[in-house]
């Protein structure tokens, strides 16, 4: 199980989206890491990647709107981090389109995705929770 309670920010919409992302990544990994032949799992992999592509963009947008709403001071840097990751995902998508959904490339993408997502939610996004907590204490 990838999700941990400590990742909760205390912002309902964002927490639900994070949990959905973690669930999707986990089910993607279960398919990707299964012993089935690649030909049998590639369609499921493509479906999940399509979902992730759209959902990550929506999630980043919602999270950035929330940061602006609460006046999060590091919003611009956080948006840059989102943009950098979106750009890296787009590079992988381009490679998938050019080279096909070859297993080594998809495995490489998945490894990066898992580590990036955990760091982003466990470290970078937690700074938003810290900021909100400080606001509540000061109120």
């Amino acid at each position, binding site marked *: *199980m*990838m999700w941990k309670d400590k990742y909760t920010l205390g912002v309902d919409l964002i927490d639900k989206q994070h949990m959905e992302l973690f669930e999707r990544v986990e089910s993607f990994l279960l398919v990707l890491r299964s012993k089935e032949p690649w030909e049998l799992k590639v369609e499921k992999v493509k479906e999940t990647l399509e979902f992730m592509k759209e959902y990550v963009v929506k999630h980043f947008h919602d999270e950035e709107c929330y940061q602006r709403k609460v006046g999060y001071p590091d919003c611009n840097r956080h948006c840059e981090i989102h943009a950098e990751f979106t750009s890296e995902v787009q590079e992988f998508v381009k490679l998938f389109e050019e080279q096909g959904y070859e297993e080594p490339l998809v495995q*490489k993408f998945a*490894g990066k995705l898992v*580590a990036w997502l955990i760091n982003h939610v466990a470290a970078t996004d937690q700074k938003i929770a810290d900021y909100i907590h400080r606001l509540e204490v000061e109120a």
Partner: protein
Amino acid sequence: MTDFTHPFFIATQEVFRLMLDLDIQVTPPEQLSELKNRAVNVSIGIVGDLEGKIDYYFPESMTLEIVRILSGMEMNELDDFVASAISEVVNIISGNAMTGLFSDQVQCDIQPPSIEVADTCSNRNKSDKLLTLETSIGQLLVDIQLVKKVA
């Protein structure tokens, strides 16, 4: 003179705590028994005010355990998925260390990491900036090979 090793220690400590729920301690270099033979070496280039590279050495078993903790799935071999995940962890540590250096007015950027399995790390480029670290899942070594850029 700025201690270039400290930001790497802080960054490694933070990433291990936040991503893996693991504590790290400094251990004497002579006690790095797990790294005497075969090790996974993730190398990352540095450019800017400092130039050079950072080599991270992990025992293979520790590499698999790190990726198991991240993914929640058992890992049996150093395949493309494991190599990519551990490379990203090193990328994150090194990126955070650059932020630490920046707060000391040292501006650097990281380059994409490369990974290899070395039969031994005894022939590694031994610098005098070594971090020898111990965790509950194994030992790791961070070899910081940086020099100030000549103007």
